């Protein structure tokens, strides 16, 4: 297993899957505060399964996944999560602001309403993604790219320690993809949060990530040397252009 400083999530001998279906085996990884990790691999390899296990949505079939407290503030870690916008139901009567405020639900707690501080945080998050002028717009009427930025704003509104992004740039045009990734980078630089991103944008991962978790054939290879990351991903890029194959298949 890789050596981690200020470990916040640790997996040891974990087997991940659903019921009898084992998707990933012998998962030994750790995650520290401030890490920027790209999770790459072919479709169906188990990238999203890994992300769900790390965020606590999915329990391991075997082994151990430990999500520790914040190492400096002695409190539970706060997660932010951005899934693909096309997984959400467009018939809900919610505005962009309503969606972003959902990121404050757990901090407000049950039986209490959102206060001015929550609304301010939501507006600040919308400003970060340059959509504050669309706060009152119905979410279903926004473009797919704007919807994805709203979901990023929702994750940011909760002021997360760990930001998990599950193929967030699918269905975005190339310019929107670059804008989205730059916003994530800026936020990480400002706040020092951990970023875990599942993506097919291999070049973007090679440019930004400190670590790459290559998910393939039921196993995870951890690449942490920048030169090796560049070489490995270059091989993948030259061998077959995953990004455009994925776009074509979707």
């Amino acid at each position, binding site marked *: 297993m890789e050596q981690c400083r200020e470990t916040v999530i640790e997996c040891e001998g974990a087997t991940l899957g659903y019921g009898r279906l084992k998707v990933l085996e012998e998962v030994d990884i750790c995650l520290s505060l401030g890490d920027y990790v790209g999770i790459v691999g072919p479709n169906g390899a188990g990238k999203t399964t890994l992300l769900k296990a790390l965020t606590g949505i999915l329990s391991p079939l075997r082994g151990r996944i430990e999500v520790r407290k914040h190492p400096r503030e002695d409190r539970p870690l706060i997660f932010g999560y951005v899934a693909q916008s096309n*997984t959400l139901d467009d018939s*809900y009567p919610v505005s962009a602001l*309503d969606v972003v405020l959902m990121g404050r*639900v757990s901090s407000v707690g049950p039986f209490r309403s959102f206060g001015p501080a929550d609304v301010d945080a939501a507006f600040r998050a919308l400003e970060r993604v340059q959509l504050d002028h669309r706060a*009152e717009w*119905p979410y279903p009427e926004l473009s797919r790219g704007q919807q994805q930025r709203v979901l990023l704003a929702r994750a940011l509104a909760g002021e997360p320690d760990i930001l998990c992004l599950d193929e967030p740039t699918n269905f975005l045009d190339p310019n929107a993809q670059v804008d989205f990734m730059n916003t994530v980078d800026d936020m990480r630089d400002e706040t020092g949060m951990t970023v875990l991103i599942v993506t097919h944008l291999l070049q973007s991962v090679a440019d930004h990530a400190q670590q790459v978790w290559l998910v393939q054939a039921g196993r995870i290879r951890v690449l942490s040397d920048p030169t090796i990351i560049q070489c490995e991903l270059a091989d993948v890029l030259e061998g077959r252009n995953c990004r455009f194959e994925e776009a074509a298949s979707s």
Partner: protein
Amino acid sequence: MTAFFDHLQYAFFQNTLMACLLVGLVCGIFSTYVVLRRLVFAGVALTQLSSAGLGIAAVTGLAAVPTSLATTILGVGLLGLVQPGRKNRTDNLIALLYIGGWAASVLLFAVAQRGDSEMAAILYGDILGVLPGDIWAFIPVAIVVLVLLMALGKEMLFVSFDPETAATYRIPVWLYDILLFITLGVTIVFATKMLGLLLVFAFLVAPGTAALLVCKRMGPALTFSVVFTMIMSVLGLWLAAGLDLPPGPAVTAAGLVLLGIVWIAQMVRDNVGLEAEESVGWRFDGERARVVALIVALVIVSGVAGALSTHVAPERTEDLLHHGHHHEAVEEYPQEAPHHDAEEPHYHHADEVEEDLLDLDDLLID
């Protein structure tokens, strides 16, 4: 005065109206969630399990409401076992609960030798025979359900809209799902006892569908849905009184007509391009104004329809009034089912099913 207002002088009609408005208030809130989460058939499956509980009570002699509540909660538990996101499995389970509940109801009432009469009573309800005790029993249920739904509204919305992300925020999605099903189940049990399966199902489907056609924020949608049930109830009872119609189906039909009006209004608005115009500068105030305008329009349409119904069949009023006196006596002494004279003016629906409904009342009161 119109037949509707004439009838409001009588306790039985006041009880009917009060029951419709109370159930409509709670179901109006539920309806938006039920339609959004595609749980329409979960609602009808739970109502069917509720009637299966009444069947068990008929066979075993157990108290009706607790038994009905128990079978409904059992169904809620089974629905809760299905993992969120596995929609196909949920659909299958809901279908199995529905047909299972239906089969059990028919078989149990047959075993209890009360088959057709009780089934008819459950389906169409004893809407004119609502007792004050039924209403008083429903009020605390309504208060608890409304307080929970309003106080946990933001969590309910989050877990409904995006359960996967809600789970990453450590929000217990399964708990909120179970809470929604339990409150829905309890509401259905008490409401079905008063108004019957058909009308409760209508209250769970039509208002939410109409609200989601019109509203683009959750708050206005919930408000619209509740107001829709109120208008639907008053219009339906108005038509029933004026045209001598069975009130349960009349309220249901009124809801469908109003839903049709809302749907046409929405289509007209979309076709003349108002939607695109509003999208540019869409604000909550505009939304609120639109909702209020449509509610006012529905009230006017309802008022005109109600007035016309009274104008068309004023001679029916005396019949219904006569039946009203008759029914009040029934309410006071429910165990003494009155004998109908063939020559006696009567209320069409009650004349057909009243004796059966009284049997059910006896069962429920037990």
